[in-house]
């Protein structure tokens, strides 16, 4: 019950008028930017980071929580009205949501997404409050070899499990790991891959990498293929749900939450798998499965709930272990670090007020979004009409501002352009972006933990195998890596039988 007390004092902190205002700014800015086509939640958080510069950590975290959920809400609006999922997790929402909108049921699609996200977000936050302390207790018992194994698992999971091509996923991961080692070695102080440029000695800032790959890469990619015709935006009025829609939505909301949270909370999570599973489940359970593909409300309600619940779930490993598994949490982790705050089990001991205020602001932000989004949906929809030259010029403008503001050095703008070109190339060749970002942020930590493990055994490789936890993780990694082979063998055996 200790966590409940902490949570209550967290609520006490956020209910101060100044903090409520910060939360309101966060959800509004997050939704406004997230709703812009082509901007997913990760890019939203990265682009809005400069807002938090100069704030004290507590307020900055309240702002983050608002931007985090606001960006997700905004993304679902875009998927439904424009069929442009800002990130892979809202691809499923776009399938039925956009069909519903085209059939004149945009108001209901937006309403079931907004209310479903609220319910799933709130339930998932409650789960977060109860689960996180257990994960913290577990994480405290972990040693360096276990952390090293966990990070390897995260690398393998984001590269091999998500996405369509393993070799492309690993290529992206390795490029991220290489970017991560640029700079002075943390242990010996020797320079690596700095190519003689003194400004590179501090390494390449993760924010610059995220903004370059996401924002600049996207802008360049769109510049290369800009559709010169006006996009078709479906007009929408006030979102509302009829009695029949409520009846059809509430079960998918709950099932989506149940699928989303656990997938987000395990360190190999992500939102793609649970949203897809939720879609398939709803299709199977629906009374009218023939409506799927033509705009079934269950196909919006379930995946949207799963998406939001898994987003809350990904905060569990991020806060309790310091292990980000999505691009959004990776960017948030980088933002934490810029305040000198190190997520992980010790965070809960050292700065309980900060963490629990962040968690309390997730509840508050979620409620604000519901109140804000139902009446404001028509206004957000207008943002979709923004002329594309202004949209992408604006993205580059804010990307440059944010990247420069990190260290106040023009070299970062050059790096931003180089990383933008890399992001451009990755989009051209279908390389996933997530492994690279996770590689940049987790690479240096993995190396540190690995070297720490080997220190204990004087360099003997046996030091990497700590106890039962790391052994279990290595078995899981081996299974994930061997999965295509196992499946092929199983198929051959079945065929010959």
């Amino acid at each position, binding site marked *: 019950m200790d966590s409940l007390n902490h949570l209550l004092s967290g609520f006490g902190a956020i209910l101060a008028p100044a903090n409520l205002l910060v939360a309101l700014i966060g959800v509004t800015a997050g939704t406004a930017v997230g709703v812009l086509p082509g901007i997913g939640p990760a890019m939203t958080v990265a682009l809005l980071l400069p807002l938090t510069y100069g704030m004290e950590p507590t307020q900055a975290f309240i702002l983050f929580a608002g931007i985090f959920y606001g960006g997700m809400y905004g993304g679902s609006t875009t998927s439904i009205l424009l069929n442009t999922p800002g990130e892979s997790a809202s691809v499923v929402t776009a399938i039925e949501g956009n069909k519903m909108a085209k059939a004149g049921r945009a108001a209901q699609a937006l309403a079931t997404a907004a209310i479903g996200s609220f319910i799933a977000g709130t339930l998932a936050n409650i789960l977060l409050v109860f689960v996180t302390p257990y994960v913290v207790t577990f994480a405290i018992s972990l040693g360096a070899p276990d952390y090293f194994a966990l990070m390897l698992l995260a690398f393998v999971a984001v590269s091999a499990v998500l996405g369509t091509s393993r070799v492309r996923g690993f290529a992206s991961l390795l*490029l991220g790991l290489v970017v991560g080692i640029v700079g002075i070695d943390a242990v010996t102080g020797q320079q690596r891959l700095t190519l003689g440029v003194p400004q590179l000695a501090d390494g390449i800032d993760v924010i610059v990498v995220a903004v370059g790959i996401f924002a600049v890469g996207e802008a360049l990619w769109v*510049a290369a*293929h800009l559709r010169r015709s006006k996009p078709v935006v479906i007009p929408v009025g006030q979102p509302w749900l009829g009695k029949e829609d409520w009846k059809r939505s509430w079960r998918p909301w709950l099932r989506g939450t149940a699928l989303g949270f656990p997938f987000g909370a395990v360190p190999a999570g992500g939102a793609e798998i649970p949203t897809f599973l939720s879609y398939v489940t709803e299709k199977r359970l629906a009374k009218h499965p023939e409506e799927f593909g033509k705009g079934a409300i269950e196909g919006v309600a379930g995946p949207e709930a799963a998406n939001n619940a898994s987003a809350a779930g990904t905060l569990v490993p991020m806060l309790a272990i310091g292990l980000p598994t999505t691009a959004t949490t990776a960017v948030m982790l980088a933002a934490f670090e810029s305040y000198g705050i190190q997520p992980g089990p010790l965070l809960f001991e050292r700065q309980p007020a900060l963490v629990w205020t962040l968690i309390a602001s997730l509840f508050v932000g979620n409620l604000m979004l519901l109140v804000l989004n139902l009446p404001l949906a028509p206004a957000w929809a207008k943002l979709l009409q923004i002329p*594309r030259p202004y949209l992408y*010029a604006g993205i580059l*403008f804010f990307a*440059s501002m944010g990247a420069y503001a990190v260290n106040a050095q023009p070299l970062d703008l050059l790096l931003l352009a180089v990383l933008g070109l890399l992001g451009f190339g990755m989009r051209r*060749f*279908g390389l996933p972006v997530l492994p690279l970002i996770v590689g940049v942020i987790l690479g240096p930590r993995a190396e540190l933990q690995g070297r720490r493990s080997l220190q204990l055994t004087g360099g003997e490789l046996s030091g990497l195998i700590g106890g039962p936890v790391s052994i279990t993780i290595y078995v899981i990694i081996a299974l994930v890596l061997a999965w*295509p082979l196992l499946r092929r063998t199983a198929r051959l055996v079945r065929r010959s039988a």
Partner: protein
Amino acid sequence: MTSETPRSAPQGGDPAQYGVCAFLALVGAVVIADALQIAHLPSSNDPVGPRPVPLILGALLLLTSIVYTIDVVRGGRAEPEAGEDIDPSSPIDWRTVLLVLAAFAVNAVLIEPAGWVISGTLLFWGTAFALGSRHHLRNLVIAVALSLITFYVFAIGLGVNLPAGVLQGIL
């Protein structure tokens, strides 16, 4: 999810992908070369040292490059990223890309001497022009307004590092 690369036979391969393999191999070689010139100072404190990790990464990059090449030879390809604003059937419009990069470079060069308000204005105006907007005056008004607003809100209001440049004292 865990299926191998989607294969599409009819359109044939995408030979430009060999460029990606070459790039990966090049990065791998550079990483290894850089790691080899780091002096190894053995110490009981850090038996591993800074060299093994880049060496392993370099080797893995070379390996990935080979596997990637085999995948491409066997017809593997991944879909370029799609989106509502993107017309994937069109060829890459290099003129627009280069114009956008030029606007970006102008900002990087001018941000310290001329200041954010001027360089940001040029960045926004130039990008909008590159992307095909021809309302020059309206674009300029928006660009100046955005630069001024961001300067006052972020640099003066929130204390973010944005240089005033030549307009120091006027803003």
